[in-house]
């Protein structure tokens, strides 16, 4: 046994102390700075999990005035009107500023009577589209929301989910 090994054995058998905690806290700070979790990863994970758990079809953003059929959702940050499309379903959404920094989300879907769910960060609201496919959500707070459309009149069809809409 070398003295170094003896010392290591001794140290290994002692309880952890504040200096050990401090060293580990510094390691955490260092790794968080040089090897951070990519920005947006948790958002992408949550969306992918929602789609998977609902077995939902993802609607694509229709971007007028662009050659591309779809754009990244961040490119229409706080746009006022956006349109999404999936197989056999179109969804148009208009955002209106309302009281106290909240937003009114008015929408229209090509499936009258469909169940429309608005998913916010930590809550969700459900309404039913009227005979003309219109729906409205009031008092929506800032953040990313998704709409989930379920059309019960056609059994067996998958729900449709929109990409994130920045409110």
């Amino acid at each position, binding site marked *: 046994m070398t003295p170094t090994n003896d010392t*290591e054995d001794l*140290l290994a058998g002692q309880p952890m102390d504040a*200096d050990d905690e401090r*060293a580990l*806290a510094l390691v955490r700070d*260092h*790794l968080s700075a040089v090897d951070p979790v990519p920005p947006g990863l948790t958002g992408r994970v949550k969306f*992918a*999990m929602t789609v998977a758990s609902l077995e939902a079809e993802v609607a694509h953003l229709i971007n007028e005035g662009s050659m591309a059929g779809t754009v990244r959702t961040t490119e229409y940050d706080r746009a006022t009107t956006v349109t999404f499309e999936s197989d056999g379903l179109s969804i148009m959404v208009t955002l209106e500023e309302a009281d106290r920094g909240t937003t009114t989300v008015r929408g229209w879907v090509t499936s009258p009577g469909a169940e429309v769910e608005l998913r916010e960060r930590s809550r969700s609201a459900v309404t039913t589209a009227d005979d003309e496919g219109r729906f409205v959500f009031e008092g929506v707070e800032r953040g990313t929301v998704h709409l989930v459309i379920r059309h019960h009149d056609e059994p067996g069809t998958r729900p449709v989910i929109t990409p994130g809409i920045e409110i």
Partner: protein
Amino acid sequence: MSTGRTDRPEQAGQTAPSLAVAAAQAFSRHRDGDSSAMDRLVDDVTPLLWHTARSQGADRATAEDVVQTTWLRLVEHTHDIADPQAVLQWLLMTTKREAWSAVRRGRRTVPREPWDEPPTSDPTAPAASPDPALASEESELARAIWQHIESLPARCQQLLRLVAFVDRPDYSVVSASLGIPVGSIGPTRGRCLAKLRLALTADPTWEVTA
């Protein structure tokens, strides 16, 4: 022990919140139909999964895929996990396995296996170049500590890298997930932390500030 220390993570003892317990509670709520519970679970656990994938040799792009795949596997297996208390360990082990096979697929032409690599050739080690914005005394010290960790055996590197992201109640879950015997770290220092402590004791950077 003092309960007044819980608000100071760097000195936290057994009263520190357990990520495993928080994860179990969130997972139970999710299974009971609380649609926001899973979001909190993702926020809380993703950093640990990220560093698990990275410590297995995944580059940043691969690690991102691995972390996403792991969470999607949880959706697939939501009803197969009998005990919610085991969900954190399940996530860590899945991440480790996914990362390991992704790294192996990516290195098919390299005849060696990951465990044969000397620590110095780790392509996933965080960038060593100093960030001028972080050039404070604390970050100098943090970088010095990291350099000592990089010279430790690979298993110690993995263990210390992950326990840095949890509090003591979760050390055993992290050890078990890495296949390292429980009790290898905490409540006693254990072999890896002792090696680090020995290196730090000989380092003037640490001695001055300790």
